């Protein structure tokens, strides 16, 4: 199974198909022009589907970068597949 970061990159690539892998790794809502609230909701749905986890709605507003999603998944390690 590909590692977690690789799977997360794939989720980002589906929502932001024009970004390279390097750009995805440093992507933030501020740096990616097309990143809006709809993108965040779609990303959350994709990540929940991919990692069979539930993202706390309270936290979602703070997930505004690739790094923040990665850190959230790391912090939820016991429930993420």
């Amino acid at each position, binding site marked *: 199974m590909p590692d977690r970061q690789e799977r997360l990159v794939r989720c980002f690539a*589906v929502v932001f198909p024009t970004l390279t892998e390097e750009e995805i790794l440093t992507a933030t809502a501020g740096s990616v022009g097309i990143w809006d609230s709809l993108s965040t*909701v*779609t990303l959350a749905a*994709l990540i929940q589907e*991919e990692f069979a986890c539930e993202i706390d*709605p309270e936290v979602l507003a703070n997930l505004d970068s690739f790094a923040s999603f990665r850190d959230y998944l790391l912090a939820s390690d016991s429930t993420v597949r």
Partner: protein
Amino acid sequence: MKLVDALKLIQSPAGEGSRNYTAFLACGFTPLHLQTFLAAHLRLRFPEIRVEIRAGLFGDLAGNLERLTPSEVDGVAVVVEWSDLDPRLGIRTLGGWRAADLADITGTAQAAAQRLQSSIEKAAREVTVSVSLPTLPLPPAFTSRPIERALPEAQLYRIVAQFAESLAGMSSIRLLNPQHLAMLSAPAERYDIKSDLMTGFPYTLSHASALAESLSGLIEPRPPMKALITDLDDTLWSGIVGEDGVEGISWDLDRHSQMHGVYQQFLASLAASGTLIGVASKNDGGTVARAFEARKLLLSKDDVFPFEVHWSAKSQSVARILSNWNIGAEAAVFIDDSPAEIAEVQAAHPELTCRLFPKHDPAAIWALLRDLRDLFGKSSLSLEDSLRLSSIRNAGKWRANSGMQESHSDDFLRTAEARILFEYGPGTGDRRAFELVNKTNQFNLNGRRYSESDWRHFFSEASSFLLSATYEDKYGGLGKISAMLGTRYVRSVQVHSWVMSCRAFSRRIEYQCLRYLFDETGVDEITFDFTATARNGPMQDFLKVFTDSLQTPVTLTKDTFCAQAPKLFHQIEVGVHA
């Protein structure tokens, strides 16, 4: 379908020459993933189209429909949830669930349903509308326990049932069957309350995908299959008639063979709705004839044409049956209980849809019947559906009486007492003409097919017309057998599509169609958007009567037509499209 797959699918480029398809998704909630899944499922069904899904404003389903300009879209999907009938039936509005509130809710739900019905009907005059009625559970708003249905709850279900009944009776409206949806999406696994609270999108991803898949099947359904060829022993009945005898075969509860009776009943239903039923059986012809005479089958011998009963290979029987019907293998289904026979037939007819009859497995037979209903199902039945079998039999009588000649003598045609009913004008609602254009291959001007939205858009131009022909002679009626789509200009007519059923060949109906078109429109010239296809040889032969060159467009003047056309003996009647 997973969301990731749906997103990838809609991002993949459409093929070269692909056409655009615009659907309007009308819902009161945030369309979010339902919009994505609907685009993906439409793309999956029609890889050659570029899909665009438009949506309206949050929380205003009725307003979204009322603001819609139907002519700007190819199809409409309406998704109604309880909160569209009254916002208090959702959780994003806190309007109260007291007993007095509940009485008021049923009143507003009734009014909301009527408003929605009116706007759906209006849109359906111009475009096909697919409708899904509430799929989510009602909230725990009622005074009774969840196990018990309270009066206000029953009243809400009655409102929805009446709404459904009104919509189901209208043409151009397709209502999603909740039983079908329940097989794809379990009711208890549909509602995502967190998503509803957070984003206003109330569905789980799995339910959104299932609903979108179902809606996509309603928006642009594939044409139904035309014909079914069935085996007899251990398929139409239980037992081997050649060994067990005519009295030894069965389809009843006592001999544990009831499902064969259910299958007979199903085939009789298909026959009555215009599906051609043929028999291919390795058997003694006399024994089978006695079985149909002596035993009361639910499928009578009059429902079946033709019977191919002998000991030759089934692939040969299938070839003869298809030839008799004059249809391609891709429009027919073959059913047999023997995997070996299925394999032999499938090898000879790769385009034929073959299904194994699972003779000892009632659940599998039940699943087969559902599968067959999916292949043969029609939204509505036409007069031609009831005439189809007799029409094919009459074509057989014609061939027998005319000595199987390709071109008949004037004497024979003069005594045929032929009558043609022409209908000329806008043909938006002519389902039979729509079907003819989309399934005829041989006498077909160019092989062009029309989606329902293409058809409606074509007739939105005032100069567009449909000329259809319905034929009858002393050997019987053939029904509506020709459809021509054209544009009328001042001095000429351009024919975009023209088809005629192969059952109507050799009667000079095609000449009479052109004569009528010249007379009706008063033009001196007709141009045809002709394209040669692998299968339209009969059309090419017909046009060559008038011209040596089949370069597109083919032009025919009235003078040339009058000089080349043979004598015509039909009695002409004129009507208008329903």
